[in-house]
């Protein structure tokens, strides 16, 4: 995987103008994700209504890979339930593990991030937004019953 695939247009575009990059009013779940080593520091905020993610946003400062991954993830989250996020996270990790694996249609444009697999030092950047979102979901899970069926 070359540098051009890592920094392909779609990723650069998400980095330049990240979607859902703001503070979320009325968030029910949130977590801060930090990578002390490289300086990434993001806040993921989610609003769950009746077990489904209605809205997702992130803010903070991070490298292009983390920013693009967060931007795409925030785009993808609305309408999903927490279990679906966990299942998709497994698939996303597989994608970064094995560049030869088939595209995962469910993950949409996030398939583009698979180029990160060729840059082992950067895999954790692509994963940070996912880990943060999941931490947020798990932390204040409590009564927020899931509506997965």
């Amino acid at each position: 995987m070359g540098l051009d695939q890592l920094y392909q247009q779609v990723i650069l575009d998400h980095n330049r103008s990240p979607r859902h990059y703001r503070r979320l009013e009325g968030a029910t779940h949130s977590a801060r994700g930090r990578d002390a080593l490289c300086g990434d520091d993001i806040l993921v905020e989610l609003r769950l209504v009746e077990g489904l993610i209605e809205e997702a946003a992130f803010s903070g400062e991070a490298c292009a890979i983390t920013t693009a991954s967060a931007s795409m993830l925030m785009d993808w989250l609305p309408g999903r339930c927490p279990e679906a996020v966990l299942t998709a996270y497994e698939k996303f990790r597989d994608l970064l593990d094995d560049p030869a694996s088939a595209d995962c249609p469910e993950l949409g444009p996030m398939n583009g991030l698979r180029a990160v697999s060729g840059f082992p030092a950067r895999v954790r950047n692509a994963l940070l937004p996912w880990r943060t979102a999941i931490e947020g979901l798990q932390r204040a899970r409590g009564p927020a019953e899931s509506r997965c069926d």
Partner: protein
Amino acid sequence: METVESKVKDQLDVFALREQFPVLAREVHGKPLVYFDNAATAQRPLKVIEAMDDFYRRYNANVHRGVHQLSVEASEQFELARDSVRRLLNANSVREVVFTRGTTEAVNLVAQAYLRPRLKSGDEILITHMEHHSNIVPWQLLCEQTGAVLKVAPINKQGELLVDELASMINERTKLIGMVHVSNALGTINPVEEVCRIAGKHDVPVLVDGAQATPHMAVDVQALGCDFYCVSAHKMYGPTGIGALWAKESVLEEMPPWQGGGEMITRVSFDGTTYNDLPHKFEAGTPNISGAIGFGKAVEFLEETGYEGIVWQEERLLDYATEKMQAIEGLTIIGTAQHKGPVVSFTLEGAHPNDIGTIVDHYGVAIRTGHHCAMPVMQFFDVPATARVSFAPYNLRNEIDIFLEALDKARNMLA
């Protein structure tokens, strides 16, 4: 034609020097390696590599234990290495040189074996705002254990220590000053001698983290007037996992042992144990023998190369890089001290250090990105991270050009 490098030859034969470092001949992603991460760890010359190889091939044995020939040879080389480190620091005696795993362990040794028994609740340990985590966390642990308080002397926007402020923070509760000689994140060379003079008036001992100093400048612990000096071999062309603590014999004599085990004893019974002489009292267990031998050879390498030529070449590299980088729009150099080692930490508008690191690596250029184990420095300059190039005398000015081209590509790519 007179080239940049032929001028360099007058002072230091940089190409001959490069021949001594086999790794510099390799390629990375199909491009010649440009190694600008010397402050994280320098590369190793053949002299070091071959001496360690020779130990394992010809005379691998434990030290100070056997009567057999291999053990005699290993002990001899191990102690010769200690004498090399003594020369490096201009210490009075080999009894003052304790081998450790590195600077970090040396600081921890002083914290626990020297300071802890002397510390009571409310006492103060004074450090500077530009310390590496290795000269912060051991003191924080000690404060937690004893109720002592960690005080931090401020720096200015250039990344220079405010010596007057530091002086005004010394009081009767101050029990030790810990300071870095050369900052790894900023490059700042601190006025250690001046601080030691001030501290001396108050009878406060000074510990110096010299990890980034010995690769670049002659260090004389007696002239500096410090009480403890800590070094790591791998920053100065030696192996990882070995370093040294220097302290005056009288101070080391008074200190209790730090870790217990073999090597540090003369007699053990279940009624009690007699500790070994200096410096072995502080070297429990089988030491890093090959590491120490490599460390000794790294000192010899520095002696043969000569600090004069090293400084000359490094200053040229630093000046050249600083001048070129200052001219780049949106680039901010973090750390602009008047007295500076060959380190340029920077941020570039619109490009996160991490992405810069990945992209320049693609062009064969190895740089460091992140917090450089100095998070308080990052907080002071209000940046999450920086990118850093750090030079060694085997680097070339045209390598800086290669780096700048790669940096330009990174900027264009991310813009």
